[in-house]
Each structure stands twice: as C-alpha cells, then as structure tokens.
C-alpha cells in the first residue's frame, strides 16, 4: 500500500518538474519581451535579462501619435470584421446545417476544399482585381472578404455546432409559422452563442494580427494597421531602428489585448477548438 502511494507521489513530482521546466522555456520569450520594455537604454546595451531599474521611459517613445492612429485603425477594422465574419459565417452555417436544398452537400464540399488552396495563389492576383476596382490603398480588401462567408473554418465550426441542435426544435417553430430567417434569429443563434463567441474572438484576433493582407494592398501610412506600422518602423526601416526597449514597448502594448482576451475567454477558446476536434 505504502509503495503504491509513494510511487504515485514520485510520478506526480516528475510530472510537475518536467512541466515546470517546459513552462520556464515557453514563458521566457514573452516575459523577456515585457521586461525589456521596462529597461533603460544602458540595460539594453549591456544585455541584462532583468532591468536594474524599472522605467517606463521607452513607452512614450514607442507610443506616439502614429502608433495611436494605427491602433485606432486596427480596432476599427477588427470590430467590423468581428461583426461581418460572425454574421456571414453563421448565416451560411445555418444554411448548411439546418436547411435542406439541392446542391447543399456539393457547395459545402467546395467550401471545405478551399481550405487546401494556398492563400498566396489568390492574394497576388487579387491585387490586380482590387487595383482595377480602386480598392488598393483602402480598407475594403481587409473588410469585404469577411462579409462573404467569413472563412471556411468558421463556417465549418458553426455548422458542426448547429447540427447538435435538435431538428425538432426548428420543426416546432416552423409549425408555429416562423420562417427560416426567424428560426435562425430567434432559435438557432441564441443556442449558438458559445461558438459564435469563439468565432468573434478568433476573427478579432485574426484581424489584430493580420500582416499579409495590409502588406500587399496598402501603401498609405495613414491606413496601416498596427502590424504593418510596426513592421515598417522596426523591421523594414531604411533609417535607424530604435533600441530594443522601444521596440519591446511597442510590441508589449500590441500584445496586451491578445493576452487579456485570451485570459478572459480561455474557456470560449478551448471549447471552440473542441467543437471542431471532437465532432470533426
């Protein structure tokens, strides 16, 4: 009896030690990012891992009016996409999950097949299309595609979730005289809030992190999102690039919303992933 117990305790201890070592490794870059943001220029130059004095001196240098402008742009684009993607993917998912019409399976398999297409094959020629329509150097390429289906993954997840809602509920509403849109709005959507929350969260974060789309279609500095602004300031900058504490201060502020959203909506996130994993 005693040996089994002690054996278990040893097993548990080993598990914690291994996990802790990995945790230190995984935390190192993010912690170092935040610590470097609070360092003095001297600490940066000497390569200290921990600031000798905590200072916020780097923040005003990083967060100037340009930064705020890009932050505002990113927020606007993010919120519009959050609404557009959720709305449009839920409508499509409802069509695929709850309505029966000829060609449904075919259209759905085409939607899923688009997941396999390399996005670069579309993004380069889209430049010409956007250029022809006068969309380059506007936010339209960052916004309009979201309203057109909202991405195969989101449609797939929403559909999986909606399939879990019993058909009898929808049938009952139909007998009561509700039309398809009303059933979507009043019955299906309220039951889909967890997955809708996940899609909203992911589409906002996707937009927040998006770098490729603005890089290809936007040259105007006043239209940059935060990703592109930081890229031209700290990565692809022909002039002199500010020291690491300023870079990290800019990066820390950009990372902050991601971490806050992540901590608050962890459950939503992990549940959303499981919908695809378990029922997929």
């Amino acid at each position, binding site marked *: 009896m005693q040996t089994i117990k002690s054996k278990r305790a040893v097993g548990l201890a080993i598990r914690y030690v291994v996990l802790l070592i990995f945790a230190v490794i995984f935390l190192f870059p993010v912690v170092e990012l935040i610590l470097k943001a609070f360092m003095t220029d001297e600490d940066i130059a000497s*390569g200290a891992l921990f600031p000798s004095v905590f200072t916020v001196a780097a923040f005003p240098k990083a967060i100037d009016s340009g930064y705020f402008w890009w932050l505002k742009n990113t927020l606007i684009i993010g919120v519009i996409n959050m609404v557009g993607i959720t709305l449009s993917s839920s409508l499509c998912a409802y069509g695929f999950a709850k309505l029966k019409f000829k060609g449904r399976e075919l259209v759905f398999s085409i939607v899923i097949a688009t997941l396999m297409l390399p996005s*670069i094959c579309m993004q380069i020629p889209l430049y010409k299309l956007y250029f022809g329509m006068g969309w380059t150097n506007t936010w339209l390429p960052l916004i309009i595609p979201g309203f057109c289906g909202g991405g195969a993954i989101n449609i797939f997840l929403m559909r999986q979730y909606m399939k879990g809602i019993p058909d009898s509920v929808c049938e009952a509403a139909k007998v009561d005289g509700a039309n398809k849109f009303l059933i979507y709005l009043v019955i299906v959507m309220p039951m889909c809030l967890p997955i809708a929350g996940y899609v909203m969260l992911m589409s906002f974060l996707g937009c927040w992190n998006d770098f490729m789309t603005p890089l290809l279609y936007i040259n105007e500095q006043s239209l940059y999102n935060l990703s592109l602004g930081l890229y031209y300031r700290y990565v692809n900058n022909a002039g002199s690039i500010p020291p690491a504490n300023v870079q990290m201060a800019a990066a820390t502020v950009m990372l902050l919303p991601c971490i806050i959203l992540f901590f608050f909506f962890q459950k939503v996130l992990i549940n959303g992933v499981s919908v695809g994993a378990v029922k997929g």
Partner: protein
Amino acid sequence: MDKNMRTAQKRKILEWISSFAFVLPVVIGIAVFTLTPMISSLGYSFTRTYTTVAGMGEFVGLKNYENLFGVYAEQIWDSIGSTFLFTVISLPITLVLSFALALFLAKDFKGVKVFRVVYYLPVMLPAVVSGILWSSLANGSDTSALNVVLAAFGAKPFAFYDSEKTAFFTFILMGLFTIGSSMILWIAQIKAIPDSMFEVADLEGANYFVRLFKIIIPMCTPMIFYNLIMGIINSLQIFSNVITLNIEPAGKEQLNFIVVRIYDFYNSTDLSTACALSWVLFVIIAVISALTFKFNKWVYYGEEV
C-alpha cells in the same frame, strides 16, 4: 390541375431560392475572392504582367515557367529545397512534441489549466511582435538574451540568426514555441475518448504503454491526419515569420522559402512570375495532399464508417 402543378413547382423553386440565399455570401465569396483570382493567376502566369500597369500584359506562353526553371533555376530549386527541408524537419518534431505535451496535460490535476495557458501563450504573439522579439532575443551578439543565458551556463556565444550556418536551425527552433496550437487540438481529442475504454483497459490490467498505443493513438488518428495535412500545407507556405525578422542578410538568405520568393517577385512588380511560381507551389501542395489522402487507411473514423 395543370395550374396546381405549376404553382407547386413555383413554390418548390421559391423554397430552394430562400434556402440557397443563406449560403449565398460564401458562394459569392468563393467565386470572387477564390476562384476568380485562382483562374486569373493562371492567366497572368502565361503573360508578361506588371503590378504597376493596369490590365493584363501580352501573352508569352510558357516563358515565365521556362524562366523559373531557366534564368532563376538556381534560386528556385534552392527555395523549394529549403521549404521541403523545413517541412520535413519541423513538422514531425512539432507533431511529436505537441502530442507528448498533450498527453501530460489531458488529465485533470492541480494547476493543469495554468500549464495549458502558459504553453499556448507564444501562439498568441502576432507575427510582427514575434519577428521583432526573436530578432532581438536570438541574434548573434554577446548581449542577445539567448547568448546571455548560454553564457550563464558557461557556453560560448552562438550565432543564431546572424550566420548562414545557424539561421535555419534557429528558425526551426523558434517555430517550436508555437506547438501550443496543435497541443490544444490533441487535448480536445484525447479528452473525447470515452472513459469506458480506459476502464476496460484497467480491468484487463493494461499498462500505460498499452493504453497509449492501443487506445489513445488509434483514437487520435483523425486528429493526427488533420494536423499532418494542415501542417504540410502551412509549412509549405511559411512567410510571415520570415519577413518580419530583422536579422543579418546572411542569415535571412537562408530562409528563402517559396512564398518569400513569390513575394520578392511581386514586390519587384513582376506579377506574372509571382503567379507562375505560386502555381508551381499550388501543384506541389495539391500532389502532396492527394498522396496523404490516398494513404489515410490508418485513420480510424469511428464505427459507423
């Protein structure tokens, strides 16, 4: 009678339209933002088109493809080689490590949530932030954070991103920090395995390895397949993580993956060569995905299939 039939038919059509209307956004989306560009991309690849000039340029036949494997051959084969090397090294390590972590974290114990959050945290880094961060932490100078840590262990400074010899290795190593995204998927899949299976295994006296190889891994095969195929597709398209790095040119030249090369062509206004190379990439991805699908007999989709 005839009239009745016609109204019945009309109703049927209206019914179809009102249902189809719900999926219309995605149909339009695929037509405009997926199929049109795919086809026009193929079209551009047979012409001489520039990003700076409106419209399609003159038809040149297979010239762009000849150029890719003629004038640019050395660079292109180099890119294809690097991209494959990256995929072949990084994907198996990612899959195995993330699965191992998931095995540790699938069971509920005290503090499990904290660990999951910690391992997932680096996935949340935006591409630009991650580029800025790693350029600073993993450069070759004595004062870069990783070299300071190495020095603390008494090791000599390592060149990391700053040398053509070590940049590729460093890039793979940095990529491993994002295994949290696959880990979360594995955890979801492992937790979905019915408890009854483990109870039976316990009754039979199965040890941990029997449970791992006879229950957990077979039940996870759909997710292995999904992670494998998406992993292949994503690694072959690696781009943002490279271009956001601010490192020595000698190091960056080693990270000359296919999409980086496509972007270079695009950036130098050569739209048609960029399109031709993106079609080469598309064919590579299609062939590999098709092969993977063909050999998916090992995937267990439950009893009903």
